[in-house]
């Protein structure tokens, strides 16, 4: 097992660049292949090597399948990337899986669908003072020859909150960079440490396997690449790279707070409480269940106490509803219901004779479905109080440029979005999808998906109905975030 060469990994994998409070994402199409390659060759791409002091500017770059083709990458190589990367986010069957229908449909997107499908995503980050000059300098003469800009997406710094006003980014997986993880076949406790291969191609994942990717024959052109760990005679094009999922999620902050306020007897404190039930955290980011006393591997209790919890002691969702956003997106479970099981007990459970409660053991093991979130907010800040006022005409939109990194889009991002966020049958609930992200569209046989149930222990749940759609998808695409060697290979350096 070889160590990770951080100089070959793009910095975004290891750092969120939090101190660089300014960022923009530029989506481009390649105008001239040679000019594009020349610009990419001459532009320094920030690596994952830790620097002291940390850099004041960073640039990372990722490509869609169409983008790789536009750079002249042969089809035989493109076709060795995953099905979903090649198919693209706006494929009709995929839109059903991801909930991108009706208002969310690609035909309504600002970017990402037919004709507006980007080739590359260029991400600029810098400390506030240097940002404008950095971006200006990068978009030089070569840039305009090389690329046609589809859209340049600005971001805003909301000090760690997302636009609805809830603390965000608290829960992130801890990547096992040193590959120290000894994973038993079945993991019986929730752990926040996740195998390197879940986030970086070319390394063992949670199954102990290396995810499929293009392996090339050694020759002059591929000499720049590293050898594949599982096939040493081949060159590993994707090693130290990963897939990047981007979605522009517009958030209707006014309708969110107005809904909460109306359903809480026009009392702002109660509205915030209802909001917390829907999010699964308070606005300050505190979880709705008490902290777990036993340590959780990969959670630093002191530095990040708000992440020190599981739902083990909330089996009916009386504290944190099953449908709450953070419970849907990370159910914090293990491979098996129950802890410290002996072999016999495990066997009994495996055969289907374990816990027989209705809500028991309904959710897939989370360790196969983690993502690394790297998105940023956009639009002006709006406090809950102000959100209750009518908006000015032509109000500037707000939302999240959602970005996540994962080595297997279908098992990680798509599973999460499909089976957990969009699913109207998540964990035994029915008639509701994610209270924040759901599209509220009816599905055959289920006219209503706009509910939100707040279970109570020993008495009747409260069911909030008629949730409007708060979040609208405005664009999206699947990218490949290459390692630096692969980038050199693509650009012929």
């Amino acid at each position: 097992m070889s160590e990770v060469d951080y100089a070959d990994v793009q910095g975004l994998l290891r750092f969120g660049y939090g101190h660089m409070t300014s960022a923009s994402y530029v989506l481009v199409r390649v105008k001239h292949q040679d000019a594009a390659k020349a610009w990419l060759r001459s532009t320094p791409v920030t690596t994952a090597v830790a620097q002291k002091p940390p850099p004041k500017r960073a640039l990372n770059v990722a490509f869609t399948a169409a983008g790789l083709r536009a750079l002249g990458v042969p089809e035989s190589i493109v076709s060795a990337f995953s099905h979903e990367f090649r198919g693209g986010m706006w494929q009709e069957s995929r839109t059903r899986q991801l909930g991108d229908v009706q208002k969310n449909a690609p035909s309504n997107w600002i970017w990402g669908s037919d004709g507006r499908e980007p080739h590359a995503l260029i991400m600029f980050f810098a400390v506030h003072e240097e940002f404008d000059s950095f971006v200006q300098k990068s978009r030089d003469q070569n840039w305009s020859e090389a690329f046609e800009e589809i859209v340049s997406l600005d971001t805003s710094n909301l000090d760690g909150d997302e636009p609805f006003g809830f603390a965000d980014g608290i829960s992130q997986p801890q990547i096992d960079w040193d590959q120290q993880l000894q994973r038993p076949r079945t993991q019986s406790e929730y752990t926040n440490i996740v195998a390197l291969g879940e986030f970086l191609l070319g390394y063992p994942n949670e199954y102990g396997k290396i995810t499929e990717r293009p392996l090339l024959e050694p020759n002059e052109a591929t000499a720049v690449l590293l050898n594949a760990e599982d096939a040493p005679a081949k060159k590993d094009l994707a090693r130290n790279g990963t897939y990047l999922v981007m979605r522009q999620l517009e958030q209707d902050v006014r309708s969110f707070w107005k809904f909460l306020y109306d359903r809480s007897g026009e009392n702002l404190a109660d509205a915030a409480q209802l909001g917390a039930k829907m999010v699964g955290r308070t606005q300050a980011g505190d979880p709705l269940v008490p902290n777990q006393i036993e340590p959780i591997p990969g959670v630093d209790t002191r530095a990040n106490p708000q992440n020190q919890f599981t739902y083990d002691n909330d089996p009916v969702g009386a504290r944190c509803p099953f449908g709450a956003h953070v419970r849907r997106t990370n159910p914090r479970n293990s491979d098996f219901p129950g802890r410290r099981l002996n072999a016999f007990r495990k066997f009994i459970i495996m055969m289907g004779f374990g816990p027989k409660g209705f809500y028991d053991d309904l959710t897939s093991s989370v360790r196969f479905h983690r993502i690394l979130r790297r998105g940023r907010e956009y639009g002006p800040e709006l406090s809950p109080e102000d959100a209750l006022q009518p908006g000015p005409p032509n109000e500037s939109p707000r939302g999240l440029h959602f970005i996540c990194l994962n080595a297997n889009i279908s098992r990680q991002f798509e599973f999460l979005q499909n089976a957990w966020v969009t699913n109207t049958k998540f964990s035994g609930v029915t008639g509701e999808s994610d209270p924040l992200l759901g599209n509220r569209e009816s599905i055959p046989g289920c006219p209503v998906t706009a509910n939100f149930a707040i279970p109570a222990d020993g008495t009747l749940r409260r069911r909030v109905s008629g949730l409007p759609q708060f979040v609208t998808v405005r664009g999206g695409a699947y990218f490949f975030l290459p390692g630096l060697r692969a980038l050199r290979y693509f650009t012929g350096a």
Partner: protein
Amino acid sequence: MTPQSNFMVLAPIVPEREPELRELLASMNRGPGQVNPNNVLLPFAEFEELHFARFVILDDKTTEDVRVYGLSPRTYPLYLAFLGDIDGNANVFLQKLIRRAGDGLRQILSCCQGFGPDTHLLDWMKQHESPPIAVYVNWRGRTVRQIREEAALYGALESYIEKHAASFDGLRACQIHQELQSFINAEQSAGRITLSKEAPTPIGWQIKNLAHLIGFPLLGLLLSPLLVLAAPFFIIALRRLEKSDPVVCPIADQKHSESLSDLEDHDVTNQFSAMGSLKPGFVRLLTTTVVLKTVNYGARHITRAGRLGRIRSIHFARWVFVAGTERMIFCSNYDGSVESYMDDFINKTGFGLNASFSNGIGYPRTNWLVRDGCIDERNYKEYLRRHTLPSQVWYKAYPGQSAVDLERNTRIRRGLEMSSMTDEQAREWVALL
């Protein structure tokens, strides 16, 4: 109890008539993957004992895989399979089907070999029946009628609670149970809610079931001296095969994969049909047979209702040999996306998956029949995708309802029918609402 049964009619298609057949089948749909339940050829919705049905053309693209064993591929005829899962006796159902939709069926089946204008439909269908070697039924005895009645019951309870939300404030679980019980009793008396009593279990079925319950272990017991003697040889042979059998898991063709996706995720439930050739030789055939007979026995007599191991998302499933013992098809109806279905399988019943599928050519390498195999997740998923067949027509009697929904509704109904409950029972019951 009304036991569930199934049928599968399997017949080779007349090659020249394949395009016509495809058109006919497509005409039964509103769009790709979306059946018109009242289509003129076979109005599925009119048959209230029919849970699931499908037409699949068994266009197996993997027959070349036998080359890895140095065998030359056989040319098989292209088969049409028509299968369904039903309440009660399959013969009775087929007769009813022919009575009500004989013309449409004739039109479809006339594209198959040996079907002429004078063919006796029922006899022909019975001659072409392919019985499964193993079957799984999510909830034995739960009929389509019961599913619909219980869904209506759940709907009625939900709207009653919504209308009278304030009156439940501060009530304890037991009181809520009583209150809802009297509401439903009133609804039943007024004829707005029907909860039919369970039909008596057919005597013939009971006898057969008992014979199966005892017969299978008895056979094992009788054969046990032989099994003990043969076991070491069998294990050695199987281990040798496991270590040398070639793995064939190329990336599934993108077009094929996308054509499957076009049919998926139109409902909360999806259909799945996968086909392939068995590894050659007696040891593999024996392993398959024993494993699947055991699965069948377990699914029929041992599993807890609503579960297959830890999996709660499968409505019906079956394994069938296709015309001989060289090829096999697996058909199921499951909730959620195919990705979550495969993940569930790998992570919850990987052992069962390996035992039953590893006898197919090219399956990722197993150890001791149940270990590894599908843990090679990416290869396994490509393997499965490559072997999956698009279903031309697929019908489900209760759109929008997952198997877990059905379980909830049944639990609610059972709770309502209890005259009294302990506090604990009442709390669990109220949590279902």
